[in-house]
């Protein structure tokens, strides 16, 4: 049992130093807990699975320069050429792909006249019968589109086709009883026609990357329609090992077929790994930055504790000497300083818990983060207590080596 009473009594003589350490521990705990919480949230975001065969996919942003009437033929010719290109497993033209960073979103209703949406931001992928094969997505219930089902999306048209394929997540949202296949819902505006769910895929992430769309991150709808506008993305799946070559060959082949097109540079031709990289750049960056700050903060706090405790040890050499002369063991002195620091850190930590939740409450308002879990606060407190003990170890050791003869010296 460490000698709490004399420690507390002695603390009264260096209130300001003890307060400063406690304050630092409190502030550090508040910042570190919240930072770790944000880091965890961001890492969770960027480790989400898109559900597609990422390592074999590439995307080309293409815009045709041609009169509107020729656009469908141009698109068909390009897609046919790409599918025949050596090294290409499959390809299709579409409006969007996972992690693209925002595309067509629509509300989904069970009743076309109701104000109630089962999803307010489901993402629409306009595809043909090759899309699921290209993406490497399996239909787990129902069937893929037939080639005769593929319609055309006219300018300002709407995506309310008779047959659609949706993700399991959206199916569950719309039909919580688990029987979505063969049922219909309504995509888009009030006059929408019903769309029957002919297939369900396990999981395909949406194009949205903004955190405000996180609740809909796997509400995807595949609509069997060809685009008829001037722009489209080619999504291409390479045969195993052929992706690096295709990243060069595909734009060349497109250019060889016709130069009357635009493929923007940079970012016109992307391997899916680059798409992922761009989508989560700021999440990853923020996580790294916060992690860096946390580590520095812990080091700074530890250094502060070492500095102040060393000062106290220097100040109290005489008192330590007297205690040693009166029979205190080296271990007693060591325990004294460890306990002293433990008490200060604990007081600081408790204040830090309050501060951490206060900071979290403010961040919930300012950044729409969620509530800090107690696990982080508890873990953070444990880390700081341990850190304090480690930091105090070296000055405490030095204190324990103060010889009893020190008691007889005047300075």
């Amino acid at each position, binding site marked *: 049992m460490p000698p709490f009473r004399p420690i507390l009594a002695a603390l009264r003589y260096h209130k*300001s*130093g003890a307060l*400063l*350490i406690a*304050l*630092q521990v409190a*502030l*550090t705990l*508040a*910042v570190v807990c919240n*930072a770790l919480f*944000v880091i965890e949230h961001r890492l969770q975001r960027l480790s989400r699975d898109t559900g597609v065969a990422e390592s074999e996919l590439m995307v080309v942003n293409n*815009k045709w*320069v041609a*009169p*509107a009437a020729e656009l469908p033929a141009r698109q068909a010719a390009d897609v046919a050429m790409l599918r025949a290109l050596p090294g290409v497993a499959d390809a299709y033209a579409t409006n969007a792909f996972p992690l693209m960073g*925002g595309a067509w979103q629509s509300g989904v209703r069970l009743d076309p006249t109701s*104000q109630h949406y089962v999803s307010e931001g489901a993402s629409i992928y306009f595809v043909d019968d090759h899309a699921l094969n290209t993406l490497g997505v399996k239909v787990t219930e129902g069937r893929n589109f037939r080639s005769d089902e593929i319609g055309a999306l006219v*300018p*300002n*048209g*709407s995506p309310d086709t008779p047959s659609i394929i949706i993700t399991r997540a959206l199916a569950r949202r719309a039909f919580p009883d688990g029987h979505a296949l063969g049922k219909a819902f309504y995509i*888009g*505006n*009030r006059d*929408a026609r019903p769309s029957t769910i002919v297939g369900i895929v396990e999981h395909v992430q949406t194009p949205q990357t903004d*955190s405000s769309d996180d609740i809909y991150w796997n509400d995807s709808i595949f609509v069997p329609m060809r685009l008829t*506008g*001037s*722009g489209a993305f080619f999504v291409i799946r390479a045969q195993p090992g052929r992706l690096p070559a295709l990243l060069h060959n595909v734009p060349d082949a497109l250019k060889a077929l016709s*130069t*009357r*097109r*635009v*493929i*923007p540079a940079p970012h016109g031709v992307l391997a899916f790994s680059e798409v992922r990289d761009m989508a989560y*750049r*700021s999440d990853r*960056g*923020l996580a*790294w*930055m*916060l992690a860096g*700050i946390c580590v*520095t*903060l812990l080091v*700074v*706090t530890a*250094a*502060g504790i070492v*500095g*102040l405790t*060393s*000062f106290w040890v*220097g*100040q109290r050499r005489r008192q330590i000497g007297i205690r040693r002369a009166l029979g205190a063991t080296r271990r007693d002195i060591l325990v004294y300083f460890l306990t002293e620091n433990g008490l200060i850190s604990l007081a600081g930590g408790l204040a830090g818990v309050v501060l951490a939740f206060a900071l979290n409450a403010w*961040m919930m308002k*300012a*950044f729409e983060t969620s509530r800090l879990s107690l696990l982080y606060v508890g873990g953070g407190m444990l880390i700081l207590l341990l850190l304090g003990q480690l930091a105090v170890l070296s000055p405490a050791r030095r204190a324990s080596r103060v010889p009893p003869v020190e008691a007889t010296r*005047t300075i």
Partner: protein
Amino acid sequence: MFGYYVQLGLRSLRRNPVLTLLMVLVIAVGVAASMTSYAVFRVTSGDPIPEKSSQLFIAQIDNYGPEGSDGDPLPWLTWRDATALVNAHKAKRQTPLYPIAVSIVPDDPNTMASPARGYAVQADMFPMFDVPFLFGAPWSAADDAGSARVVVIGKNLNDRMFGGANSVGREIDLEGTRFRIVGVTDRWDSRPRFFDLDTRQKGFGDLGEIYMPFARAIADGREPSGGNVCNRPSKPGWDNFVHSECIFVSFWAELPDAASATAYRQFLHDYSAEQTRSGRFSWAPNVRLRNVMEWLDFRKVVPAEARMSVLVSAAFLVICLVNVIGLLLAKFMRRAPEIAIRRALGASRGAIYAQFLLEAASVGLAGGLLGVILTALGTLCIGAVFDPAIANLVHMSLPLLSLTVLVALASTLVAAFYPTWRASRVQPAWQLKAS
């Protein structure tokens, strides 16, 4: 005396180099982290057009009612409303605006066409937004009325296509239609580009560099390349889209003073009320008129990451300062006997203050100088956290450098205040007796 204190200070700092180095490092790291994130925040939250930002306004009119918007109207207008506002001519200058994407077809059939982002606007936009011209001038009001095939291009595009020569009067092929160039704008680096926020980089990065008459773009069926919302059904086809309740146009007005802004707000309200009377809207007028900075705030242009990093690094700096207070306290109080002797020999409290503040200031200065190096390193690493479009705008500058040193110095002095006060309170008699 000053020189003597400096000497004393330096000697004292040398006496425990580890403690001194620790303080310098802590200050440097704290200041560098704060300054780096502040630099990013400054860039993203800056006023893109300081002379006029309080005179330029964007109008919002709720055309979907309580069902389609939660409180604030959506950020765009229908073609119909934008056109009505333009035709009303209630502002000093005004323009409808929407971003477009064009394909520039080269004369050589063997080279691929190149993309360019641009804006469909009216001639008023150029003087309104203070767009600088290198060659030529904006098109005329008659060109707007006659939906002429004319364009104004940016300096970069002019450099790429014409080697920087005066291209006014020459033609450019956009998707097979020839447009006459009437003007070339000079470099125009105002960021964020407040009228073009619907890109991935929200107003940063490479933005539009070609401008064409609004009426021409509509007539040619140029689709909006920013955002659009269609909350009401409309029939297929471009014309139906334009005349539907789909929103995609911004409307900007120049209103030179508060009175005209108030009057315009009233005008918007009356316009919306008129729509309700005519049966188009079934709700009370819900309109907004925001100036540039209010608009940037409403559209949340400053990335959450930038705001969060400012907050975290400010907290970091505070913790570093608490640390420095403790270290300085330890350092100063260790010299209580020395202070006591000086006091006993006649030094005033003021003299003690001066001596120790000076010592702290030298630590702060050293921290500031090291902080400058770390801030410079930090600005190089911004690309790892933020979009390159934003990172490229942040670099070490003289103001940032001076601010870094100043903040380091000021915060160290603030931190030194309490330890110095304690030092000045040392009782000479008590200390002398104790030793």
